[in-house]
């Protein structure tokens, strides 16, 4: 019976697509078989010292560490020459880079229009020379690859279980609305006037260099559009089909106008948005890394409304957007030959929908629904990822659409962001980081998430939302050992084992802790140490990026850079922060709870015995491990005692994080909670933990409870998350209404539901009510998963990891792992076929 399950498992199919879109979608999914793709091409200045690959941006991707040298070499090897401007080597680095990138994308990379496509701008994935002089190249090599260079420091940090940090591309929302309104012409004019107002001394200094660079970059979109315009005209001439001919002519007309001039129609606005967006990825040499669109349903709306008034059919707006959607997915082509069609989890061209406006008004409009329909009709498709902003007054129609989409996609094809909690965090940020002139009660609703759920302001904010990923759990390990690794590091490449050293502060030894409070004090010391360690590591790559990797095109799109005469990589954005994302939160809290429970409260073992058990990876200490896993309190159950310790842990590391700024770029650190895939990978790096987890088992994900710990169900889980973020202010005076939120960046939260919760209209209403309850009690962002047969089969194989899995079949509740095999199989069969 079970063998045939997988193939019969109901999978969402795209629907309602025109022939054009169906063809483009099918073509896209042909992957490596396509004649056309958007694979990286690499381009060199032809100097013997040229460097193309900026590895710093991959320091937060541990999977690439063994490949850094290979990638660097292979881009160089494959690089094609670019004929340089005669003055090239007389220019400053940002000017060289601005010119080189523009030259490559306008004059070297071919321009193409796919059959039927309504949006121009196809290839954008490039690896371009870093444009170094010989001296710059030498300095870069030493700073990055030297014995104590950025790479070595980063590797040490990761190898020893601290996490990772690196100055990473993307992860911001460019000022798209401004570009639509004033066009590149307006930007260019503004840059010229700033440049013309500079004194001679300033012009000859770095400010002048930077402004000349951004002025060059500000013509890139215009020049590319004019190439595409000619292409469209040529194609139109040859096109036999009258309708397609007309489309190509309109595209040419659009491109003769935008993105240089302000957009006037919906089609022009979408065309502008695409070119401006794709060139960010060109400029950064990195596709889709959290380069987010912000509130597209808001800033595209005036153009949509006008075009509808002028007679554009609603379906045509969707057709244009669907082409845009296909384009966004070609970002994955960058490394298309590396398997899985190049599709990785590391992208996130996020688009924000709905949400609050001024004076508490809901901003849902017809374009919100159009974009949701586009996603629904094209799904499954990955990019751009939508994040729908909900709040206390979100309209029922929007919630209905969301719930229907969750049902038909077997899980949410989008993230949900929660405005009140998120805005409370942004207001806190304004206060602590002294940004109240830029973030305040009258504009905080304009915030939008980047990447997945990382909240920032729009068009003037780079907050380095994935740049620092710290395993809080390391501080528990260092507390147990008095500042040393619990296990010696063994290099998997060389097989060499390093001796254990006193890396962290020397806190009292295990046996000297008389009380839980003694332990907590030492934990606080070690937490401060690991944060400082992360800050120092980040400084190495952030300062190198600031010196060597300008992104002048992106700097044009972010307010602050031009006035300051600084690149965005140098901290030019008005809001220039970097985020420390805490990883392993629940594992850390649960480990502290377990130490308290096992050693001080239940006195099941001494501290020495616990350490011995952890060193032995619990082998021979199974009873103690079982106590830690099953009897010690856990975060995520709406248990006051556990959650109050969880809140203390949160407060401690957040307070400490706010104390730091980068030295060279002056970026304030702020706290957040996201853990991408580190919670899985670092589970193999980090030693066994006191919560009963063995080395090699997963750590906890972002703000979620530990795997299987949320045995009290989704509402208890949600309440715990809300409580540790700060809950509601007792006096009603929160940072937004009565809400508090200690994490301005926000926190990633995933809950898995049984699909039977959506089985009929009455249950859908219950689910909607849950979402409304989440708005009041929960966190900043939620990803909804639905149980699928694969997960249940995994639960059969690993029941200990799925203690929380509740099966609800009308009038009857049972934990999945407590029912017999045969009945489990039946549950799987029902879920596979949506028969409850």
């Amino acid at each position, binding site marked *: 019976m079970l063998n045939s399950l997988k193939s019969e498992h109901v999978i969402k199919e795209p629907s309602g697509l025109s022939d054009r879109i169906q063809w483009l979608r099918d073509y896209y999914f042909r992957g490596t078989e396509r004649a056309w793709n958007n694979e990286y091409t690499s381009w060199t200045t032809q100097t013997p010292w040229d460097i193309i690959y900026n590895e710093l941006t991959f320091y937060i991707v541990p999977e690439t560490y063994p490949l850094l040298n290979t990638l660097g070499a292979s881009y160089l090897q494959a690089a094609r020459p670019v004929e340089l401007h005669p003055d090239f080597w007389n220019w400053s680095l940002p000017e060289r880079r601005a010119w080189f990138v523009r030259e490559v994308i306008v004059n070297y990379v071919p321009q193409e229009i796919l059959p039927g496509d309504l949006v121009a701008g196809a290839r954008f994935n490039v690896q371009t020379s870093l444009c170094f002089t010989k001296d710059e190249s030498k300095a870069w090599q030493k700073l990055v690859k030297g014995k104590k260079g950025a790479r070595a420091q980063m590797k040490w940090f990761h190898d020893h279980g601290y996490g990772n940090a690196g100055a990473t591309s993307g992860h911001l929302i460019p000022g798209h609305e401004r570009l639509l309104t004033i066009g590149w012409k307006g930007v260019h004019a503004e840059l010229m006037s700033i440049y013309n107002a500079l004194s001679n001394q300033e012009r000859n200094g770095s400010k002048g260099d930077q402004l000349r660079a951004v002025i060059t970059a500000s013509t890139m979109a215009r020049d590319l559009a004019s190439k595409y315009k000619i292409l469209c005209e040529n194609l139109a001439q040859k096109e036999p089909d009258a309708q397609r001919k007309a489309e190509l002519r309109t595209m040419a007309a659009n491109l003769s106008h935008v993105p240089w001039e302000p957009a006037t129609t919906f089609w022009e606005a979408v065309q502008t948005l695409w070119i401006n967006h794709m060139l960010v990825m060109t400029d950064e040499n990195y596709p889709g890394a959290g380069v987010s669109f912000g509130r597209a349903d808001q800033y595209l709306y005036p153009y949509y409304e006008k075009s509808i008034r002028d007679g554009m059919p609603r379906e045509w707006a969707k057709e244009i957007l669907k082409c845009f959607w296909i384009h966004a997915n070609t970002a994955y082509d960058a490394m298309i030959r590396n398997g899985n069609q190049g599709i990785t989890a590391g992208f996130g061209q996020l688009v924000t929908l709905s949400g609050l406006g001024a004076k508490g008004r809901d901003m849902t409009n017809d374009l919100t629904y159009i974009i949701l329909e586009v996603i629904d009709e094209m799904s499954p498709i990955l990019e751009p990822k939508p994040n729908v902003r909900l709040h206390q007054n979100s309209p029922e129609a929007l919630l209905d659409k969301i719930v229907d989409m969750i049902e038909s996609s077997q899980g949410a094809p989008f993230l949900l962001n929660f405005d009140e909690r998120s805005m409370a965090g942004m207001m806190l940020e304004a206060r602590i980081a002294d940004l109240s002139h830029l973030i305040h009660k009258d504009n905080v609703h304009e915030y939008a998430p980047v990447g997945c759920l990382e909240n920032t302001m729009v068009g003037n904010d780079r907050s380095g939302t994935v740049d620092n990923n710290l395993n809080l759990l390391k501080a528990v390990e260092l507390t147990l050992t008095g500042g040393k690794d619990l296990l010696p590091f063994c290099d998997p490449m060389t097989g060499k084992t390093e001796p254990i050293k006193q890396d962290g502060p020397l806190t009292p030894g295990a046996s000297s802790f008389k009380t839980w409070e003694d332990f907590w004090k030492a934990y606080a010391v070690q937490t401060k140490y690991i944060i400082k360690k992360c800050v120092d590591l980040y400084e190495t790559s952030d300062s190198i990026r600031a010196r060597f990797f300008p992104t002048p095109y992106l700097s044009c799109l972010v307010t602050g850079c031009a006035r300051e005469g600084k690149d965005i990589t140098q901290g030019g954005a008005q809001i220039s922060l970097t985020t420390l994302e805490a990883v392993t939160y629940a594992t850390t809290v649960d480990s502290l709870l377990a130490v308290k429970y096992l050693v001080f409260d239940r006195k099941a073992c001494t501290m020495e015995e616990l350490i011995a058990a952890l060193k032995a990876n619990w082998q021979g200490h199974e009873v103690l491990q*079982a106590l830690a896993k099953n009897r010690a309190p856990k975060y995520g159950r709406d248990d006051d005692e556990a959650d109050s310790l969880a809140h203390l842990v949160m407060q401690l590391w957040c307070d400490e994080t706010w104390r730091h700024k980068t030295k060279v770029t002056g970026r304030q650190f702020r706290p957040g909670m996201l853990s991408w895939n580190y919670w899985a990978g670092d589970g193999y790096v980090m030693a066994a933990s006191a919560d009963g987890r063995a080395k090699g088992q997963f750590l906890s994900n972002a703000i979620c409870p530990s795997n299987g710990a949320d045995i009290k*169900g989704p509402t208890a889980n949600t309440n715990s998350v809300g409580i540790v973020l700060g809950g509601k202010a007792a006096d009603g005076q929160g940072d937004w209404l009565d809400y508090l939120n200690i994490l301005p960046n926000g926190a990633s939260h995933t809950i898995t539901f049984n699909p039977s919760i959506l089985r009929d209209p009455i249950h859908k209403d219950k689910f909607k009510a849950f979402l409304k309850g989440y708005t009041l009690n929960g966190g900043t962002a939620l990803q909804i998963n639905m149980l699928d047969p694969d997960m249940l089969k995994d639960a059969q194989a690993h029941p200990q990891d799925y203690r929380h899995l509740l099966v609800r079949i*009308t009038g009857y509740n*049972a934990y999945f792992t407590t029912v017999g095999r045969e009945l489990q199989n039946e549950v799987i069969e029902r879920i596979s076929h949506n028969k409850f």
Partner: protein
Amino acid sequence: MTRHQAPKGIILEIIRMSTEDGPGIRTTVFFKGCSLSCGWCHNPESISSKPQIQWMKTGCIGCGICVETCPEKALAKTPEGITINRLLCTGCGLCTEECPTTAMELLGKKWNVQDLAYELAKDRVYFEQSGGGVTLSGGEAALQHDFCLALLKELRGRGIQTALDTCGQVSQTVLAGLLPYVDILLYDLKEIDPDKHKIFMGAGNDKILANAVFAAHFKKTHPYPKTLWIRTPVIPGTTDTVENIRGIADFIHTNLEGAVDRWELCAFNNLCRDKYQRLGMDWSFAGKDLPERSRMEELTRIAESRVSSSIVCWSGSTKLEKGGDQKSPRQTQDKSNPAHGC
């Protein structure tokens, strides 16, 4: 009542975000102890009012601590796992306190009203957003009447909507005392034939039918309960006869008409099979299949033909049919009739 006299309840389980025990999102409290002993009971651990222990293979690491702990020598370690000699076990729960894994579990824990109400109020916002609340279920909650009444009063005081899920086999005085604090009464009418009722449920149905009439009258003449749902379990080979459904329908029509807001036919469920095994109980329904979908539909049609049809609906899982394009209930349900979505 002074604090030290405050009643304590024996509670089996608290299930949060329950979507199946009344309207909206609910927290359901399962009371231990029942006045009936239905052969098919889904929650056999709720029948006895005494605390019981159970051992679950999943999670047991075989440490044997429970065996050493037991003062009655009721436990033994065997190749199949831990066996419980139910004749010796007093349900003291010492083994469950010492068990490191929770594989040995005490069914039935003591709660005082304040602590329990505090726990139940934690999902208040979800209740408010969904029109839900707390359901007292079991077992038979009304058997622990002092505690049940104190809890209902406390929840009412906290502004939380309440539902009482009762089998009806309780004293009318007790019921009369509880009803003013119940927003929604979920009332089981399982079998109309008194002899069959005695065989399957361990008691006749005189009291149950009389209480149903009493509750319906109470509802019509008092502010509470506001809602009355009748529930009939459809159990293959017992209550699933046309005669029974007709009989209950006629009873509702004659005695309860106008007071009943919903009559739900609940399909038999076999997910509890392993529970019986763990409790060392034989289960005569272990081999029974779920009812067929067509049977549920037929019984629903019969029910609809004899009472106000808008109150009738059915719920639950039906037998999986092989090969065919079996439609799931939601695809055939008439969405225009909200009662059909239960």
